[in-house]
């Protein structure tokens, strides 16, 4: 899924980097220094509904044509994450212990229309 271009109306991935220093949390999250908080937004027109990952390809073009020629309920398609990955965190717990853990589904990698 491509990142959103400015003024992109269609469903795409919006990339935001969050620095833990900006949150004031650098005292307890040791690593990493920040992470990529991405989210999905944009319009899902009827012909794109149910097509996760709207990359221009032969298959997506055929899929879009099929959708365009078939009645599709309006307003029921959402721009949602279709692929996520975990984030490895090293942090201090309330007892001052160092904890390393992988938090699942933290980083959105791809978006698509539900």
């Amino acid at each position, binding site marked *: 899924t491509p990142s959103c271009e400015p003024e992109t109306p269609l469903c795409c991935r919006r990339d935001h980097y969050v620095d833990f220093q900006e949150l004031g949390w650098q005292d307890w999250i040791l690593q990493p220094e920040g992470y990529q908080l991405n989210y999905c937004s944009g319009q899902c027109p009827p012909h794109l509904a149910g097509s996760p990952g709207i990359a221009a390809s032969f298959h997506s073009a055929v899929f879009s044509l099929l959708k365009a020629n078939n009645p599709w309920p309006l307003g029921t398609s959402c721009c949602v994450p279709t692929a996520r990955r975990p984030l490895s965190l090293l942090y201090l717990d309330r007892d001052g212990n160092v904890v390393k*853990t992988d938090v699942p589904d933290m980083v959105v990698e791809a978006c698509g229309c539900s």
Partner: protein
Amino acid sequence: AQRAGSVCPSCGGPTLAPQAERALVLELAKQQILEGLHLTGRPIITHPPPQAALTRALRRLQRGSVVPANGEQVISFAAITESSTSTCSSTLTFYLSTPRSHHLYHARLWLHVLPTLPSTLSLRIFPWGPRRRRRGSHVLLAEHQLTTPGWHALTLPSSGLRHEESGVLKLQLDCRPLEGNSTAAPQTQQLLDTAGEQRPFLELKTRPKEPGAGRARRR
């Protein structure tokens, strides 16, 4: 969230001003992290471990060690060390808050032996508690020969640590000369760095309990 017949919120809606959007993103990030770590609020760290001790401990750990999905690897520094002035005996206290939903499957105690090690000594580790020892219910967690100064990693049976539900784990360290060795055992302070940059630490690995695992084991 999507309600029947409504327009999906991610499909449109008013565009936020950049500052407002940034504030929203930061708030979302906070919520996402706390939720992912199963915390209700950010931990308040009153006694952070010294940076140097932390760096040394992290270097000691296995590189590229894999934490299982939803599992945790914890480094806990000995918070309090009580040492006997007359014998080679010491008690290490660790404060742990491992979730009860997790199962401890790996435990190692790291000790830094000072270069003043006089000779080969035998180090024995018990769960702390004189009462336990008198009743004969104590368990020898580990026995190790100290032959060289430097870092020593002692694998502890995770079964011996599972019953510590109070969140406080105390380990008693006793050392003594090996049989036939006439050298008197030194005091603990002469043997171990217990509070400095090379203070003892526990390395624990946990993973989520599998549903029905206890039942299967009993069967």
